């Protein structure tokens, strides 16, 4: 209690405000640390607001992947008869749709995050990266809910996950890194060019089909199968299947390439964000 009452007045320090070049903010950990409470509050706001005044609330986190699972099973599983590595098609697709929904929602909401918070961005200073990052953090809650439902369905179907399930946090980290890299760049471009709003929904649909969500990547011939893992969602999706269903061989080759690729995307996205961040308030 006593610690709470101590005045929070650090010795005044002088900050020089001047034109900057190169990297200045996103990669300044001290600055991010100083505003850590705001980061928490923004993520909390995004989580709280996401399903407020919706009749179904958090159920939406589950309904979307389940809905896709049903449709994909009917069309791709039954009608088109796409191979599913000997797995029941619903499980095959749901285990991929859980991380995919996390990724696509992060892209959709994150790329608009700076523009939809333009009142804040143009009136108040804070590290802008909190806006796209907050969306992704909020997405973890949805991901956790849908992951629990996935595991219930997997168990009910008679599959028992192996120790491979311990790889899930790593896979989520890869998906989150890729999502943050892409959304930070897209949200920054969106400040200047609202074209992003029209590109993103379309790009997400394309991205779904270049990721092995409805088909297994084993259908792709080498070397293209390995190369396709440059798309970080290839490693994430195939990894998720292996980790949650406890079958098949560990796709470490795909996961490794995807992890590297996600790091490159993250670094490039943050670097671009950092370069243009200083001008956001003048354009948004």
């Amino acid at each position: 209690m006593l610690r709470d009452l101590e005045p929070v007045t650090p010795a005044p320090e002088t900050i020089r405000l001047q034109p900057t070049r190169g990297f200045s903010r996103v990669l300044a950990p001290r600055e991010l640390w100083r505003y850590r409470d705001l980061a928490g509050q923004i993520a909390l706001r995004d989580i709280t607001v996401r399903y407020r005044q919706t009749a179904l609330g958090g159920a939406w986190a589950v309904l979307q992947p389940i809905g896709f699972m049903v449709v994909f099973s009917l069309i791709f599983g039954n009608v088109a008869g796409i191979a599913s590595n000997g797995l029941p098609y619903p499980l095959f697709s749901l285990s991929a749709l859980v991380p995919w929904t996390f990724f696509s929602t992060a892209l959709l909401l994150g790329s608009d995050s700076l523009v939809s918070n333009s009142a804040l961005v143009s009136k108040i200073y804070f590290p802008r990266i909190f806006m796209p990052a907050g969306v992704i953090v909020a997405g973890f809650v949805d991901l956790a809910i849908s992951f629990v439902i996935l595991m219930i369905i997997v168990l009910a179907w008679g599959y028992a996950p192996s120790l491979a399930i311990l790889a899930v946090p790593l896979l989520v980290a890869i998906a989150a890194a890729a999502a943050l890299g892409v959304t930070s760049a897209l949200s920054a471009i969106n400040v200047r060019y609202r074209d992003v709003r029209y590109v993103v929904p379309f790009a997400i649909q394309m991205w779904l089909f270049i990721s092995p969500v409805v088909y297994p990547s084993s259908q792709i011939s080498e070397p293209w199968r390995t190369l396709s893992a440059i798309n970080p969602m290839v490693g994430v999706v195939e990894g998720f299947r292996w980790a949650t269903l406890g079958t098949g061989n560990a796709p470490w080759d795909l996961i490794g390439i995807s992890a590297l690729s996600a790091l490159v995307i993250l670094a490039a996205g943050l670097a671009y964000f950092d370069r243009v961040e200083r001008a956001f308030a003048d354009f948004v």
Partner: protein
Amino acid sequence: MSDVAIQTHELGKSYALGVKSAGYGTLREAIVEAAQRPFKRGGKGDGKRKGDTLWALQDLSLTISSGEVVGLIGHNGAGKSTLLKILSRITEPSTGYADVTGRVGSLLEVGTGFHPELTGRENIFLNGAILGMRKAEIRTRFDEIVEFAEMERFLDTPVKRYSSGMSVRLAFAVAAHLEPEILLVDEVLAVGDAAFQRKSLGKMNEVAKEGRTVVFVSHNLAIIQALCTRGILLERGEVKTDAPITGAIDSYLRTLESAASDDLLERTDRDSRAYDETLVRRLEIHDASGGHPNVVVAGRPATITVDVTEHLPTMECQLTIVNSLGQPVCTLDSEMSAPVDVREAEPGTRLECHVESLPLLPGRYRIDVIVKAKRHIQDGLQAAALFDVEPGMVGNRPIAAEAEGDVVLPHSWRLPA
């Protein structure tokens, strides 16, 4: 204790004009521009010609000591808000630098951080964090904030169900309990009902007396005069006057005077929202008896004439009479139409507003004008005219020499049996 709180050195901020008026560009423009870039000489990135650049601030060198309460005054577009935006780190300067010592809190617009779906309680924490408060700080001041805003009962109601007055009260309460060493305030006291305004003003006074540095922007010169000790008058991005507050206000009033007597088409401090399809060319107020323009007599008929450059269909005009301290006295708005209005079938480029008996106390006033057409603001000018009201009779009664306020009402007295 005369430590320096804010020191600026040749601070400047430029905006590329084309981009500013378009709001935001499209990818196509960027691609076209990128394709043309090899053919243009110039550095990477900022390849704009000089003529396309607007300097909102230029060569600004100022020193503000810790504990000073400074009022920033000036016309629209003089650079006041830009300076606050740079000091609060929202935007970067283009040239020069500013050294800021101590934690900065900025109140640039009350309630910007509010989220309508969140409850009052949740918003207090969110908004506090946005303004730079630590969570522990907000927790210790939570009860104070709620008490100041007078809204214990609505704490768990989403803010979207608040009346606008309520959300403003809550927002101000959060902001007022922020304890930064440097407080930047932009026009926030013009909110809420009169009682709350008085309370907010009291709070601001308290903050100022606690020895914190305050930089204050307002069009309300009365509030500025009451709060500040030093005044800085900005004009076209440069410091025109830096003096004790009364001197700075006098200097500002003089610039208003000279601006009003200039050709209005030469004014550059026009409303930034305007579409500019028609511009106010001249604005005058005449006494019914003729005589000098802009000299009128209390209680007599007066006519305000507004001349614009182009006639536009559905043209409307809004005049605001403002007293010498910058406080609005009344608004005359043609959009609120009345049966006595006359509209010719083919009107020209003049709008006239008749006042049957001018109910103003003697003194100096100014007229701000906004011309609207096609559902947009076409032009807006502050202090389009300055005029003097001379003593007269209102309702057949002379005006009391010691009358207070700005208006005088035609009235009569009875002493019933």
